[in-house]
Structure formats: C-alpha cells, structure tokens
C-alpha cells in the first residue's frame, strides 16, 4: 500500500488512493490490512501527503516533528547506553556505533531533508519562512526538552553542546534545513527566517544558544545585522505603545545574548554594524531611525561586552561634523526622552571599562573651551561643547555618588562593594591622569582633580598614595604642588594614614630606582617644600612620616647625582627629627653628610657645602655622642689622603696601579713585604722607595686645589667645626667660645688621625735627647703635617678651646722633634730658605702660645724666626722644649674662670719663666740690629 515513489517527481495519485493515504496517515495504520504502520512507513506516508495534499502540510510537519523527537531520543538513549558500558569496551566507542534501536529513523530524517530541501529550492518564497520556523522551533523544543537530561553538557559549555547536537543526525538535518532556508532567503528577505530564530531564542534561551551560535557563525554579517534590526523593530513597536520597559527586555535580552555569543569571534562585524546603524540614524529619517539611538544605548546597557566592543570605535568616529549631526538630531527629541538618554549615557560611561581612557579624553577634549590654537575646522560647535560639559559634570556627579555610596554601604559588609568599571579602568592610567592634570589647563585640571579624588577613594589602598606620590614627583611649581596639597586635603578625611603611605611609596620608588635623578630631585625638593611651607595639615603629617625614613634619605646623601644629594640634605635639614634617634641611624646620617660635605668640596658646590654643613650642625646638636661623631668624622675626613688636596695638602695615592690585572689574593697580600710584620716603632723600620722590578714609587700627583678654593674650604670647615664645638647657647652670639669638652674631643681626634701610633703618647714630654727613640713616629707626624697644612689651622682652633691643646701633646712633640733635627742639620744661611719648616715652626709655637702651653713671652719668639739663622731657630725651639718638658702640658694646670666662662693658666704660679728666656735674649742680642724692635715682646 505504501508507495515508495522515486523522489523528485510528484506522484500522481488518484483521489481514491489519496484519501486512503490520508486515512492511513491519520490513523497510523494500514487501512486495508489494519496493521500498524512502522515509524518509517508512517513518515513516508506523510511525505507523500506533503507532495500531494497541500492543505495537509501543517499536519505533516507536525507529524515529522514527532519523528525528529523520536530520532533524537533514540540517539540520546544510544549514547547513554554507550556511556554505561564498562570501561574495557571504551576503545570500541571510537568504532562504528551499533545499529540504532529504531532502525531507519536516520534514513527517514534524511528523506525528509531531501524533500524539504527540494521544496525550498523550488519555491523559497513560500516554503522557506514556513520550514525555517518549523525547524527552528523544533530545535528549540528538542534542546529544552533534553537540557536537563543526565550526562548532557551544561548550557554554558556551548562547544560541547554544539558538538553533541551536531553529532546527532536529526538535529543536524534540521540545522542543514534551516541553513538552506536562510541561505536561499538571504538576498531577498532574511527577516522572515531570522524573526523565528529570535522568537525561539527568547523562548528557549539558554538551551538554544548553540543553534544561534552555529548559525551566527555561518552567517555572521546577516545574523548580526538582522538581529540588530529585528531588535530595533521590536524596540520601536514597544516604545510607541508606551509599555512598561520590563516587557521589552526579553527580545532585547535575546538580541544581547546572541550578539554576546558572536562577539568573541565576530566582534569586528558587530562593531561595524552598530556603528553603521548609529551613523545612519543621524540622518534625518523616520521614526525607526529616531529610535535607533535609545535602542543602541539600551542594548549597550544590557551587555557590558557589547559596550566594550563598541565604545572605543564609537569615540573615534565622533568627529566634529558627526557631533554636530548628533546635536541636531537630539534637539528634535522631547525633553523627557533626552534626559533619559542622557542618564543612560552617563550610566554607560560609568560602566565603560576598556575604552574608558579614550572616552574620558574625548569628553574632556570636547568639553574644553575652544582656544586659539584649535584648528578652526576641528572646533566643535558651542552647543555641542556645552552638552559635553554637562555630560562631564554629570559623569563626575554620578561617579561621586557611586563612590561615596559604596563606602557608605560598607557597614553592611556582606555585599561586596559595588564595582565601577570606569574607575577600575582608569586606575591603570593614573600617571597619565596626574600628568595631564598638572598641565593646569583651564577647567580640565579641575575636572581631572575631582576625578582623581574619586578614583583615589574608590580604590583607596593602592591608589591614593600612588597619586600623591606621582603628583609630588611631577609637580614643578608651587602652583602644581598646590594640587597635591588639595588632593591630600580632600582625601585625608576619608583615608587613614595617607601621608605615611604616600611617603612610604615615594621612598620605595626612589629605592627601586623607578625615578630618574631629575624626578627624584624634584620629589625631594617638593617634599622639603611641603614640609617647610605647609605647617598645617599636610606638612606636619608628611614631616612625621618622613622622620621614619631618615636612614633612607641618609642613603640618598651618597647618591651619584649631586643635586639629589643636596636635595636630600635639605630635606633632612628641614624635616623634624624624632626625639630619640637610634645611634645607628644617627651615625649613618653623620657619615653620609660628612661624606657629602667633602664630596661637595671636591665638586666645588657651595650649595652642597652649605647644606651639608647645616645638616651636620643640626646632627651635632642631637646628642653628645652625635657631636663627638661629627667632629671625628670631620677631622678624619679632612685629613683623609683623598681630601687633603682640598685644604692645600697633598694626598697619597694608595698605589692605585699596584698590580695590573693580577688577581688580588689575600694570602699574597699578607705575605707581601712589610705588611706581614709591623716593624714600626722599632729600629727595623724599612722605608720603601719602591718595589724591585717595578721601579721607583710613582710620583705623587694629586689634585691640588687652587689657593682660593683651599682657603674657602678651610674656612668653611673651620667655621663648621667652630659651630659644632660652640658652647650651648652661644651659637647666635657672634663671639663664640668653644666648649672645652668639644675642643678636647677635637684634639683627641686630631691626634688619633695624625698619629695612629700611640705607643709613647703620654702628655708629658721627655728630655730632648730621647726624641731619637721615636724617630719613626715623629717622621710620620711630620709627614702628616707636611701633607695637611690644615693641621696647623686645627691646632689653632684647638688652642682656642683651652686646655684642649694639651691632648695634642704628642703631635706637638713629634713635630717639634723633627723641626729641631731639621734646623740642626740645616746648612742654609737663613731660616727663610727652608720655608715650610719656618712656617711650621712659627705656627707650632704660636698655636702653643694660644693654647697657653707656653707663656706669652716665650710664645712670641716665633715672630723673629724668619729673621734668624737655622741654628738660632733650633736654639730657640730647644728652649721651648725645655719649658714644656719642665712645665708639662697638663689640663689640670688650667683653672676655670667663671667670670669669663673659660679656662686659663697662670704662668706666674709655675716658677720663674725668666730662666727659659736666656737663650731668647741671647739670640736677641746677637741680632740686635735687626731684632731690636722686637725686644719689648720678650720681657717677662
């Protein structure tokens, strides 16, 4: 009974046969024999009716629906049973699947496909809408029906789902059929097919997504543009009837869903299409075009990914001419609608994330008042600018609401704080924001300042200190620095410990080497400026914060860039010191600043010298130990061979080219001649003239500073030492008296530095003959004086702080011993022929006089040295020796005079000085013709 006609030819059935077929189709059984039709025969029968009985087509399609349902079910059952097979047979799963339980269903679906495709090809206009709707709806039903089945991939794992459904014959057939419908209709009116897709997508939303994704991938441009236009149509029709917005959501929702799927692979097309719609909507047109703008906004509001896709390009495409069009377009809209759109825009702007910086830039650029330098063609219309101005302000307002509302909601700590994507995106662009703000363009910097404040509060832990740090680093003028202060004022109420965090960040930045020298310099200067000038809020806080990082800034004193050192130094000068400074930090600072002092002298930077002097003076006052340390450092530094040149002396090069290229071995070094055993102080002393094989010691070449610099340096060092040693409370009075205690420290330090060998260094002097046992030490002292003329100045200084010079006794004795031997050996005619020795002798005696180691009459003898012969000088010096030997240079000989506040020595109580004046007077007499004028100076 069931005829199996060859496909493609419409079978000509007689009416009687046809009515029998109808009967058998409706009853599902063979009308002649009464037995039940198999699924396959039933399906064939229905196909026959489809060909011969046009009014039955809906019924036939309905029946075929059940066929597909059966086919899918059997497929899935099959799959489940396969999955249930023990693991051992899993290898067979790759093989051909066992024959399905309902045989021929696949064949039937293939037949159906063939017939339907034939119809579609022959008359697409009539069949395609019908069949496409049918197949789409059926796929929707199938997907929903089996969605919750066990072993089914979750609807979110689109790829698995797609794979599964496409491996099922029936659904693949349906998909093919729909694809054919769409491809035949694509040129004429694809709306008919796409509408069904959208409707079904709404109905079976999550489970149906694989279909949309697949079709969308096959016809991206069509689907995208159609989906958009269908959505627009829907939007228009709903907006006109003023329905509640909730009803509008489903269709829009599915539009968003579909586009969301496609956006991963066809983001470009979507972007282009949306932009195209946007630009088209600007042309004067019908109602639908007018609704495009709100529609697109609504769409973007529903889908963040879409917003992200479109935002950037949209901003780029908004040229002045486009903006003018847009303005014209919007001016026709009713006020209420306009306000809605504006609010939506603001909302969207807050939601923008990737394009946020560009968006911001665009808004600010457009909202900025036109300036002279704007290209005339590119200038935007005034009304556009005003609108943009309004948008910027509203955006800031909205951000402010969100940011502060967010912190307010923190009390209900369950919910995570609301996210503001715009601010999140801007966070990464903090440096640009700061830099742009500091340009101080009108209006713009005020907006940016506000935005920055919001941004800082929004992401408070990292952001606010960073912003402050950036501003502190970048500000070049006090006006710019003012922005940082303002920002701090805004933020300080909401953020705890802001200054500390900012300073910590600054320090970290400096230490990490993230800043160029110039920036670091600027930062330090700005910090100092703030600490000095803003004594109110920020300065105090910053100062307090800075005091925790003194050692860090101390390290900066050793920076390679002198400017940085100096700035750090100034900062340290003005920043408050903590009440108790740990010794380690103190010493570090002292060492660094004294280094800086000498370094500045080398560089001839008077600013550096003065700032480091200031700092040293300051440190000196911190504690007694500090004072000691400062003095020690200064003296040691001044006498250091490398620095000797600064004060007119000669440094020793530490044999820099000792071994070229040879590896430095400690063992070798230790076994090196002279370093193994210290022979000093014994008769075995060896004096190097050079190394055998390497020739003589190289000529000592030293940087000899000019006379003026030397004087300047000496002056500054001495005045620094003076102020360090000044008595407390005396600093401001111009008549400074040295603190004896400080002077003693100074003296001891000088002694230590000039003569490290303290073997025979008691204060009392031995007889002159004994000096030959200390020849080596005396020579060392001599060399030291020879190299450091500064020592004489220091001796003078020490002499002021009586009785401190006593502690330099060793030096004085050693120097005097060498001078004596020089004058003894000298065969010159006059003492002036050996100028240095003459000078040394004069200075020595005069300083001893100042230090009251000698009585004035004896001390005055130096005035005639230059007029005498060498042996006469020796005689006179011998009498000095004798005096000191007999009247030992002991501090206890000095008496404190409360009236003057100083120590002094009364020589009249120490025996008759006249017995030491004998030689003096003899020499005077001997040369009376020249020295007669001076005789009055030597009366006891």
């Amino acid at each position, binding site marked *: 009974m069931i005829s199996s006609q060859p496909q493609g030819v419409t079978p000509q059935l007689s009416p009687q046969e046809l009515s029998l077929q*109808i009967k058998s*189709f*409706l009853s599902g059984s063979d009308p002649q024999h009464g037995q039940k039709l198999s699924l396959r025969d039933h399906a064939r029968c229905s196909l026959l009716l489809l060909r011969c009985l046009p*009014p039955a087509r809906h019924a036939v399609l*309905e029946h075929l629906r059940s066929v597909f349902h059966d086919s899918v079910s059997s497929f899935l059952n099959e799959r489940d049973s396969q999955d249930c097979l023990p693991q051992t047979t899993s290898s067979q799963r790759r093989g051909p699947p066992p024959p399905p339980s309902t045989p021929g269903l696949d064949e039937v679906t293939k037949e159906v496909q063939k017939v339907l495709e034939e*119809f579609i090809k022959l008359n697409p206009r009539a069949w395609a809408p019908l069949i496409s709707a049918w197949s789409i709806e059926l796929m929707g039903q199938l997907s929903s029906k089996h969605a919750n089945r066990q072993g089914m991939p979750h609807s979110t794992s689109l790829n698995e789902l797609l794979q599964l459904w496409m491996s099922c014959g029936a659904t693949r057939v349906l998909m093919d059929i729909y694809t054919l419908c769409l491809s035949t209709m694509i040129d004429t009116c694809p709306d008919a097919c796409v509408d069904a897709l959208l409707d079904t997508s709404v109905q079976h939303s999550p489970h149906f997504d694989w279909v949309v994704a697949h079709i969308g991938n096959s016809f991206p441009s069509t689907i995208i543009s159609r989906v958009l236009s269908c959505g627009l149509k829907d939007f228009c029709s709903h907006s006109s009837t003023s329905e509640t917005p909730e009803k509008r959501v489903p269709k829009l929702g599915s539009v968003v869903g579909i586009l969301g799927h496609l956006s991963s692979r066809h983001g470009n097309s979507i972007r282009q299409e949306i932009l195209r719609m946007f630009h088209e909507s600007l042309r004067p047109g019908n109602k639908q075009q007018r609704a495009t703008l709100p529609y697109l906004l609504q769409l973007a509001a529903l889908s963040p990914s879409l917003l992200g896709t479109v935002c950037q390009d949209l901003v780029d495409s908004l040229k002045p001419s486009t903006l003018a069009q847009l303005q014209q377009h919007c001016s026709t809209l009713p006020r209420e609608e306009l306000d809605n759109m504006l609010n939506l825009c603001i909302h969207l702007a807050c939601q923008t994330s990737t394009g946020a910086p560009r968006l911001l830039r665009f808004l600010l650029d457009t909202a900025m008042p036109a300036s002279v330098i704007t290209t005339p063609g590119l200038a935007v219309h005034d009304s556009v600018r005003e609108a943009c101005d309004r948008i910027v302000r509203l955006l800031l307002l909205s951000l402010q609401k969100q940011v502060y509302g967010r912190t307010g909601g923190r009390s209900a700590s369950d919910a995570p704080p609301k996210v503001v994507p715009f601010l999140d995106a801007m966070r990464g662009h903090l440096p640009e924001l700061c830099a742009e703000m500091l340009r101080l363009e009108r209006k713009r910097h005020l907006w940016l300042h506000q935005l920055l404040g919001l941004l800082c509060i929004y992401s408070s832990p990292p952001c606010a200190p960073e912003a402050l740090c950036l501003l502190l680093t970048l500000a070049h003028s006090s006006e710019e620095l003012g922005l940082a202060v303002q920002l701090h004022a805004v933020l300080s109420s909401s953020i705890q410990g802001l200054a500390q965090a900012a300073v910590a960040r600054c320090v970290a930045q400096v230490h990490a080497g993230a800043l160029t020298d110039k920036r670091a310099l600027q930062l330090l200067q700005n910090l100092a400026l703030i600490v000095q000038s803003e004594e109110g809020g920020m300065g105090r806080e910053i100062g307090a914060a800075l005091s925790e990082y003194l050692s860090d800034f101390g390290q900066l004193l050793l920076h390679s860039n002198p400017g940085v050192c100096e700035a750090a130094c100034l900062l340290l000068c003005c920043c408050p010191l903590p009440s108790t400074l740990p010794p380690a930090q103190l010493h570090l600072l002292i060492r660094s600043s004294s280094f800086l002092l000498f370094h500045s002298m080398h560089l001839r930077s008077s600013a550096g010298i003065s700032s480091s002097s200031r700092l040293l003076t300051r440190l000196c006052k911190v504690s007694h130990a500090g004072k000691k340390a400062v003095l020690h450092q200064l003296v040691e530094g001044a006498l250091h061979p490398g620095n000797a040149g600064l004060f007119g002396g000669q440094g020793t090069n530490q044999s820099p080219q000792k071994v070229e290229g040879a590896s430095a071995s400690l063992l070798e070094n230790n076994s090196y001649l002279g370093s193994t055993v210290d022979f000093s102080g014994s008769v075995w002393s060896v004096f190097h003239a050079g190394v055998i094989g390497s020739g003589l010691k190289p000529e000592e070449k030293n940087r000899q500073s000019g006379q003026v610099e030397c004087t300047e340096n000496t002056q500054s060092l001495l005045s620094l030492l003076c102020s360090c040693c000044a008595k407390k409370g005396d600093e401001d009075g111009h008549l400074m008296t040295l603190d004896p205690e400080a002077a003693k420290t100074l003296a001891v330090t000088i002694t230590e530095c000039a003569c490290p060998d303290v073997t025979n260094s008691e204060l009392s002097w031995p007889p002159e003959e004994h000096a030959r046992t200390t020849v080596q030490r005396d020579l060392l002292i001599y060399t030291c004086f020879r190299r450091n003329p500064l020592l004489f100045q220091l001796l003078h200084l020490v002499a002021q702080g009586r009785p401190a010079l006593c502690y330099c006794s060793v030096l004085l004795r050693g120097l005097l011993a060498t001078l004596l031997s020089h004058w003894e050996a000298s065969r010159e005619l006059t003492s002036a022929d050996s100028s240095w020795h003459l000078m040394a002798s004069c200075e020595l005696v005069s300083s001893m006089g100042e230090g009251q180691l000698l009585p004035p009459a004896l001390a005055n003898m130096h005035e005639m040295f230059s007029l005498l012969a060498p042996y006469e000088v020796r005689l006179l010096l011998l009498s000095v020796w004798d005096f000191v030997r007999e009247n030992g240079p002991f501090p206890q000989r000095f008496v404190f005079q409360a009236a003057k506040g100083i120590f002094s020595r009364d020589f009249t109580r120490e025996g008759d000085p006249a017995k030491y004046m004998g030689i003096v007077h003899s020499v005077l007499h001997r040369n009376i013709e020249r020295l007669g004028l001076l005789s009055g100076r030597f009366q006891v």
Partner: protein
Amino acid sequence: MMSDIRHSLLRRDALSAAKEVLYHLDIYFSSQLQNAPVPMVEKGPIELLEEFVFQIPRDRGSHNKRLTAMQELQLLEILCNYFQDQTKEAVRQVIFSSLFSPQGNKADEQRMVLLGKLTSMAVAVCRVPVLECAASWLQRTPAVYCVRLAKALVGDYCGLVPGSIQTLKQIFNVSPRFCCQFITAVAALYDMSTEELIPPHDLLEMIVSWIFEDPRLILITFLNTPITANLPIGYLEVSPLMGLVRWCVIAPLAYRRKQKAAGGVPIVEDQNLYSKLHLSVLQGLMVLQTHLTEKSLYGRLALILFEQLVPLVEELGQLCEELNPLNAEQEMELALDRLAQALQVSMATGALLCTRDDLRTLCARLPHNNLMQLVVSGPVQPQPAHPTLTPAYYPHIHTPPLGYPTLPAHAALPAHTALPTHAALPTHAAIPPHTALPAHTALPGHAALPAHATLPAHPALPTHAALPTHPALPGHPVQTFMPGMTFPFRPMR
C-alpha cells in the same frame, strides 16, 4: 436544545466536540427540513459551530482548546466525508452555509482558513459535493471573502508543491461550476493593478487550458442562475467575462511594466497564453449570443456592463501614458486591438449594451488605433430595426451591413475578422474550422500589421467543434433561485 448540546460538548476534547457538533446539527437540520421547505438558520447553531469547530471561546471561563494541525486535518477529513456522505443536497447546503457564511465577527478569520483548507482538500481528493457547495458559497458571499478563498487555493496549488497544479486542473472534469466560480474569483483577485497582482504562470496556463477546451465554462454560472435585473454590489459577477477581458487587454502593458520594474528582462512566455485566452473569451461571447437568443433575452440582459468598462478604459489610458516613453507601441497596439475586438464582439453578441456614441466618448482619450477607430465609428446604418431593442441600441446583428453574408447563428462573425490582427495569432487563418468564417480578408486592419509574421507560431489549436453544434449544456437547467438568497437550493445535475 442548543444549550443542551453545548453543555454536553464542553466536556469533550476539541476534535470530538467538533465531530459531535456536526452530528447534532445534521440531525437538527434534517428534522427542520422535513417540517419546512426552507429551514431557518438561527443564531444558535452558528454559535455552536463557532465555538466547537472554529474554537472561538464564547465566554472567558471556557479555556481555548485549539486543534493541533493533526486534529485539524482529521477534522477536514471528517468534514469532507460528511459532505460526501450526506445525500440530501439541502442539508448539505445548510450545513455548509452555516459553517462558512461570514458572520462579520472574529470567527471569520478561522472560518476562512478552514474553508480554504477544506476546499483545497476537496480538490485533492475530488469531493464533488464540497466543490459544488463551495461554488454556491462563492456566488452568495461578498467578493472580499471569495478572493480570499481563491488566494488560498492558488497558494496551495500554484507553486507551493511542484506539479500540484495538475491536481487542480483535474477538477475541470469534476465540477465545472466550481471552476467557473473559481475563475471569476481569481480574475477579481488578480486585477493586474500591480506587479504582484499579475496571475502566476501556472494558474494562467490552467485557466487558459480550461476555457480553451470549452469556452462555455465561463457561462456556466450565468446559465445556472436565475436572471436578476441587477447584481448586488460587492459580490462576484455572474461570469468571469469582464475579468478575463480585462486580463487580455491589460496584460501586454502590465507585463511591459513588470519588465521595466524587473530591469528590462523581457517576459514573453505568458503572452501566447493571453492570445489564446482572448480567442476563447471571444468564442465564449459567441456562445453567449446563442443562449441569449434562445431565451430571447438578446439585447435585454448585459453581461458586460458599460460601467465596468469605464475603469478599464481609464486604466488602459493611464498605462499607455505611463509606458509611452518606453517604446511600447507594439504592446499598446496589441492592447488596443484586443479592447476593440472585445468591444466589437461583445456588442455584437449582446453582452454589452451601449451606443457607439457612448463608446466614442469613452475611448476618446485612448491613443489612436485603426481597429478601434473602425469599431467606434461603426458601419453606416440608416435605421434601427429590431423590435425588441430601443432605438438607441445598434442592432447590427439582425440587420447586417451590406456585403456580409447572412448567417444568423454567426451574425457576430464580422467582429471575428479582427482576430487575425491579433499579435499572437498569426497562424489563426490556418486553423480549418475558422477558415469557414467569412469576411476574413475584408478587413483592412489585417494588412496594417505586417509584424505578425515574425512572431512565434501559435501552438496548434485543438480542432474546435463547430461552435453552433455545441451542446447546450443539458445538465444545467435554468434555475430559479435568486443569487442573493440562500435558499432553496436546487440540485445541480
């Protein structure tokens, strides 16, 4: 009683309810028919049908049971079988009428959909009673509904399923009356006013083949309908004549317009069909004359009303103006020729009653055409002679002009001489039956159209039985019911 039935049906599912309401109403109307010759169709049964067949919920409480497509097909089959098995013509008609007569309510939509499917199914399975009922329905239903039915059938059979037109074609042999009404409805539907309203090729071919096979087809309804003085407005005409004339006249220009819209691709394949149709229509007119004369209605009953011609001529004029710049002289000539021939023949056969003066004023605005000129001016005729005609009418049939042989049955044949001028009928003269027609060569218009020779040969026309010997359709006696009334029905055969 109706409410009792309703209550019992409310509990049923949709399909069995539909079945049962049919059953109940059958009994109801059968018993009514026994009591009264003309049963009253009350509101009750119609409401029942609306509720249970067309699934229009009467009150909000009852939920809407919709038939699935499958159930609908079952219902259609039941209906088909019912009408087939119901032997009483009257009951059939009453049931059909109460089912499908438009009531002007929201059920009409469903009604029309179901009627379309039922008719379509009846066509497929050759249910003659259903088709006859549908033919009657087409006669007494406003044209807007008829057009919808035609549209449904055309949709189903022309193009949807390839080759299905053959099925529709067959009903010519089964129910000529339905065919005639169908053609009328189709002609009303496709009025060629726009590109979409040009009849599809398959449909055209089928109709042409029907009429060409038997030109009397277009007169069946007319012949089976009691004569009424004036047709109610808004209903289908009693014959498709006017519609077909319109097709033939407008077609060349309408296709030309379509060609212009399509971008210049010439569409020629249908033109031969229109030529053939034109011939058949003219032949049909001549058959009409026989009938009119037999019933001595000649000159008293116009099948083509002058008022109907006015819009046609106007439209033709507009089309000519519209297409004039397009070098459409050939098409214009053809259209005007056809119009002239149709006017001449219809006047000659008594289908059109008007004076030549009327024609002259009517056609004054048309472009010049030789044949039209001849038809409008007419032969010189001294006096009106026919006793039954008012002097205003020109009775040339019974007083043929000099030089024409006196052939009473073929009195209209002078008009036929215009046929050779027909563009698509160059070989017309070669067809033997027609060569018998006199005065073929007497017309100057023929020589004026030399281009005909280049046109493709007309497909061999079937040898037509001599027109006079046409059987007078004995199966269709003159009926007495009035077209505007529903009852009583008379058997068709």
